């Protein structure tokens, strides 16, 4: 299995190169560059840049070179882990994504350095914000979906099975941006129960740790629900059909025949085996979550990678776009690989050579 994993990791390299090349070409062949876009947005003659300065800027950032030279430069520096500086944020892309390194705070300034709060520092980064949202969504999904699927399968054909079947089917077809809009209108605007923009309330910095956590959770609740419910329906339906298949297996009949209590049969023998195919879902869910984040973060003004990406496209912030595409592709590829490998771990019959 080790050799298999190593081989898969090696195949990933040309795939990654191809993906980044496609994105690079799409973005480069489009009209405009970071500096011309900047000019277009500032209106009138005052916004116009001196052509000499403009050329100098292009030259300074290597944007005057042919695209293959530019791509090669990006690729070779990315290979060493350097993704360049964001044009609009004016700091390294890695810092935007993962948060500033601790030494940047130098102990004397910076709120998080003072409290020594590494977790909070990470949350302040774009990746941290997106991860928080997605992990919360994932938590909702599994906590709610598996019991629903379980109950529906155990009492197959009962009222719960039929009602949940219809409801889950509906949920699956609901566009998540529409659910976001409806939730904001109802919960946020009409009932004023939960906040629906950004990640923090005013005065967040002054709060205590518990209040901070509660505030964060309140802000994350609505977007996380929007991210979760679609895949939730998917997982619940999947759990149900998987469990139905397992219940008919011989070993379940054997377990019943030897007089084990029904609880033990269902939880120990049936459910555990039924959850193995759920691993494949991870491979499907992660890309869905990645693209779902873009639109949901935009609606809820959640300062994560998705929102950053939309802004980066609009301002032609090449390093951010490329790093984002790279990160997205790596996440998807690695999840697929882990899914395949965990199969072998969960099911001794699966062997890779």
């Amino acid at each position, binding site marked *: 299995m080790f050799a298999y994993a190593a081989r898969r990791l090696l195949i990933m390299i040309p*795939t990654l190169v191809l*993906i980044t090349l496609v994105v690079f070409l*799409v973005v480069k062949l489009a009209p405009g560059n970071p500096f011309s876009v900047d000019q277009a947005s500032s209106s009138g003659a005052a916004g116009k840049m001196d052509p000499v300065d403009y050329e100098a800027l292009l030259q300074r950032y290597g944007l005057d070179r042919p695209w293959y030279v530019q791509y090669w430069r990006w690729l070779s520096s990315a290979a060493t882990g350097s993704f360049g500086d964001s044009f609009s944020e004016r700091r390294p892309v890695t810092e935007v994504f993962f948060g500033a390194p601790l030494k940047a705070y130098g102990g004397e300034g910076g709120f998080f350095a003072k409290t020594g709060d590494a977790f909070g520092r990470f949350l302040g980064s774009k990746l941290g914000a997106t991860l928080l949202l997605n992990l919360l969504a994932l938590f909702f999904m599994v906590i709610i979906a598996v019991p629903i699927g379980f109950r529906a399968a155990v009492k197959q054909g009962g009222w719960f099975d039929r009602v949940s079947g219809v409801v889950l089917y509906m949920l699956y077809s609901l566009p998540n941006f529409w659910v976001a809009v409806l939730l904001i209108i109802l919960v946020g605007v009409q009932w004023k129960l939960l906040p629906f923009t950004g990640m923090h309330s005013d005065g967040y910095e002054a709060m205590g740790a518990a209040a901070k956590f509660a505030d964060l959770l309140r802000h994350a609740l609505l977007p996380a629900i929007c991210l979760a419910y679609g895949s939730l329906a998917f997982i619940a339906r999947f759990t149900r059909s998987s469990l139905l298949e397992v219940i008919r297996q011989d070993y379940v009949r054997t377990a019943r025949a030897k007089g084990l209590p029904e609880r033990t049969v269902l939880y120990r023998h049936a459910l555990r085996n039924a959850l193995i195919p759920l691993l494949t879902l991870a491979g499907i869910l992660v890309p869905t979550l990645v693209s779902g984040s*873009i639109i949901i973060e935009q609606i809820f003004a959640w300062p994560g990678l998705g929102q950053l*990406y*939309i802004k980066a*496209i609009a301002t032609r912030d090449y390093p951010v776009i490329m790093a984002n595409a790279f990160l997205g592709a790596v996440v998807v590829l690695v999840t697929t690989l882990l899914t395949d490998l965990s199969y072998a771990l969960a099911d001794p019959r699966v062997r890779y050579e």
Partner: protein
Amino acid sequence: MSEKRRRPAGIWGKTLRRLRASKGAMVGLVFVTLLAAAAYFAPLLANNKPLAIRYGGELSFTAFRDLFPFHLFLEKDAVSLRLQQNPDWLLDLETLPDPKVDTCILPPIPYSPFQARLYDVNAPPSLGSRHLFGCDDRGRDAASRMLHGAKVSLLVGFLAMGVAAFVGVLLGGLGGYLGGWVDSAVVSRLIEVMMCFPAFFLILTVVAVMDPKYLNIWTIMVIIGLTGWPGMARYTRAEFIRLKEADFAVAAKALGANRLRIAARHILPNAMAPLLVNVSFGVAGAILLEASISFLGVGVQPPDPSWGNILQQVTLHWDSWWLGVFPGTAIFLSVLSYNLIGEGLRDALDPRLLR
């Protein structure tokens, strides 16, 4: 023996019979058909031009002219010209009577999708004002915009999926049938690359960086189609690999048919059934994608209406709940319909259930 011997029901006959028994698929089909009719006849259902009018003693059916997209009647009639100067002319007849107008029959929704009316800005839905679904922040009637926007959603579904199916079947068929390096080095790699790149990412990037000059519903459809083919290609490839060793394909080869003929006339028709299921789900996906990118403001550009960009307006005015509820319902119902049709088709085609 008589010539009229009944042909045994083939796979399509059986499928159709089973599909008709599926309640969900039928509901979906009816809804989609109604929607297509509503989209086509939108100029008669929602328009500020009259269905029939006697103006200055002359009878004309102005709204019907909009049914012909290529403007067969290039010369404008007097009513159209008058409406061009004042779009609200016929709406205001009660307060500002026009002696030249004799009889006038307006469409059920007497507003055009582009007609901005100052005193209807953010008007909530009401029967009295004939704004069934309310108005947006420019006083444009939401129901009218939704009816005219339905065209975009339906066309996107079909055209984008058409492009995706064409590319997918072509590549998948090539890879599956030819095998060898064509498959392992080109087709499979391409599929892999496209699969691990969320389509939404790529579409968003392409659409956002494109020159706005070329950004219209047609290019959006093509872009959605060009990113939607990997699923199709994977299915086609698997089917071709399975079927190229089938008896009928071998028989055709023995009879001297060339490879193109075997692939196109023998294998493809037999691979059609599972592909069709895929197409149905793909249409749902394409509608959703178009709505998403229009919602983000990079898709169909206002003033052209699309369900996605009407829905976007609610994010600027959260109090106008009607702009959130109605277009979203339309998107949801059409996506649900295509999913139901796909589900029905899949069940109808499942060989384990076929009798």
